């Protein structure tokens, strides 16, 4: 039995291992931080959020300040898929972001069917906004 935990992570309840959902690479013990089995790269945020203003003219250019913010990119060591992009101040300890009770997870899934693709939920937030806009238009607030 394997349980999907994120877009890229799953837990094999039998082996108690984290796995990559793209290449099935075994990342590490499910009772530990999955990040310990990944590769990390310290990305200068200006490489992703590139300056849009002339850096000779302005200090603030729509790019984050690299002295204040770095991007830690986490990759699967086998297939290179990026699992996380963690924005942190320089030197801040990476966050242990998922810590599950594996025994409880096993008990919870004892009577559940295995799922291999994440279910799609209704897009309720969008539906509510559209309903609100329709109401607003109906009240006479029309836009060009």
């Amino acid at each position: 039995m394997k349980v999907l935990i994120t877009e890229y992570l799953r837990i094999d309840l039998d082996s108690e291992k984290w796995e990559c959902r793209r290449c099935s690479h075994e990342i590490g013990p499910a009772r530990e931080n999955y990040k310990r089995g990944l590769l990390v790269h310290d990305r200068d945020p200006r490489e992703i959020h590139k300056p849009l203003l002339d850096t000779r003219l302005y200090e603030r250019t729509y790019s984050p300040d690299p002295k204040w913010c770095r991007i830690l990119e986490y990759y699967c060591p086998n297939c290179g898929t990026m699992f996380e992009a963690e924005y942190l101040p320089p030197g801040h300890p990476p966050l242990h972001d998922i810590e599950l009770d594996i025994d409880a997870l096993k008990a919870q899934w004892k009577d559940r069917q295995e799922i291999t693709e994440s279910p799609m939920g209704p897009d309720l937030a969008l539906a509510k906004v559209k309903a609100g806009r329709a109401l607003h238009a109906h009240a006479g607030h029309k836009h060009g």
Partner: protein
Amino acid sequence: MDDVKLSAEDKALLDQFLAEHRLFLGPDPEIMRNHTLTERSQMEQAAIAKNPDPHQIHHIRGLINAALSEGFQMVNQMGAAPGAKWGDLVTGVYTAQGDLAMIAPHGIIAFAACCFYPIRFIIKYWVDDPTVGVRDGDGFIHNDARYGGIHNTDQSMMLPLFYKGELVCWVSSTVHEGENGACEPGGLPAAAESKYDEGIKMSPFKVVENFQLKRDLVTFLQNSVRDPKLQLEDMKVKLHAAMRLRERMISIIEQFGKDAFVATLRMHLEDTETEMRRRIKELPDGTTRVLQFMDSSLRENVLQKISLAIHKKGDRLIMDFRGTAPQFMNRSVNTNIASFKAALCTGLLQNVWPDLPHTMAVLSPIEVITDRNTIIDAEGEMPQAMSLMPLFKACVCWTIPMNKLNYSVPHRYSAIIASQYDQAATFIYGGITQHGDATGNFCGDINGNGQGARSHADGEHSISPVFGFMCDSGEHEINEEDTPIIRLGAQRLAKDRIGFGKYRGGMGYEQIATARGSGMWGFMTGCEGSKFPSAQGLFGGYSCPSYQLMKIKGINIFEELDKNPKVVEEFDIVRLMNERPIPGGKYSSNDMGMTFELCNDGEIYMICQGSGGGYGDVLERDPELVMKDLREDLMSHDNAWDIYRVVYDRENLIVDVEATEKARAEERKARIQRGKPFEAFCKDWVTPEPPTDVPYLGSWDDNTETWASIPGMMRVKTPSDQIQGVFMPNPKDVRIAQLEAELEACRGGKG
């Protein structure tokens, strides 16, 4: 005195004396720190004991909803405040004990989620006070967030509803009114350094008797704000919406009986709480965490950490915010814990389970732990006029940790969404209008935050505010008729300012404004995220970029256009700033936090609404979606390669599928080459303390210890449960000291 032993009788007498002679009825911690449902009252118990028919309860609930919607429409149509026109309002109904039972389907959740605090205050302190009392026909006004509320710019009108002499429920109407007489116009004074700079502070008091506004009090309030006409008009509007709501509730009671009505309100709350616990139980047991970093106090740049761990076990869910930044003692970006919880309630309903009834019962089963005297649990004299900063973080703080907790659940109640852009990216304004009236308020662009990317689709552009579903971003023509603000550019999507991912965040739009015909007009802006991006990506998606405030000062664009109609080819922020087409202009790029400053006729101010966070690995983005972004001019060609690694023909945008797959495979290999194993990486990366050259507030590696590190001023570490707060120097004094030091150096030490 320690030796004095009081008898039980004397003790009771002393307690009564103290209760009757309290010198100040300030915000009551017993009320303000309790967000849970009250116990069933005798009236509720009796009503439920009669086993009300569930179908009838459903019927009554529908009728109450319709009435709330009608009240909402009344305020929306008649309200004078810009916020009312654009949907920043709500109507609500509360139980007799003050529990928020239901709100208007399109209303702003947080507003109503705040009203039960002042209603509970009125019940506790005014009902039995012979100088006040609560009677049929009374109405109470309130705006001080310390007694409940998001911020003091929102004003509420609350009416008790009596039926045959018995208090059966409360009804309310709340609007973001804007102007409130603070030290800066518009109701959101970032310059407030104490609560006494925040303008009128209405603890809940009676302003209506016999369904009539008391004109003496109205006049006092009008004298306390810059827009007296607005104050009067919207007090009337809120009162009459609440009175209509009252009439509708009485009709329902007369048709179905008081017991059925009371049982409906109570069962609605209890059923919602039961459903919440059932959903919590479905989640896996464990802990997920997220960190949010705010980078500005709106007076200076300073990193403030919000730390959240969500602990879930069985049907308990605990939100642990310990380790969060200490409060500012003289900056307005603090919030009290009650307001913070109201924003949590909003965020849960907006981002995680939008299908649940919009009541306080969704938050009731959730436990919230904080350190006192932090920016999310500020107390006492601390200013909190720009509480929007931490409150907007509360709205989105769910998205990352809840999706990590929620992803495994077999049934999905709503789509997975990354963080929405979470800044109040709009112009706040004030001054004398072209009609000679004093005014101050904010523009409806606050309602145009880009949606976070979804697990199945890109986010929607400028979809809604982060705190509600239904809002309009305003009619510029109406604004131009009422105020000297002229829009030189608006609703143009901010190209290349994207939260990249497999699915990208919905984008924000540019706002380019100037003033004309006033002679006394100004703007302020209240956003952070100029150094550290605000909207976080999910599962490998990137955050939004940083955003800045741009200015072109020392020119008059109208005179320039008179001289040369083609001086500006298009009002595009990036082009204007890089090409500098207007001669003689002083171009600058600044932090998005700007206290009020005067805008002379024709000077230009430019900001952006922001993008939501991205979802998933950029290398998994469908190349055709990348082409679509190019076709729609949302993105430059450089990013198609640099970020997404798509190979295509720039002329016809036809993708070379094979070459793209090859390029992406190579990039994945390159990632493996450049990535370091986690443990080795941490050995090099992690520092034992925060950096010394960046102002930093909050915990570092241990949530039980909190840092306050302001370069050149202080660097201390205190136990997180003993935080007092941080007093910041005047930014002008800091600047003067820098300049004096430079001067000293230039003079070679010859002072």
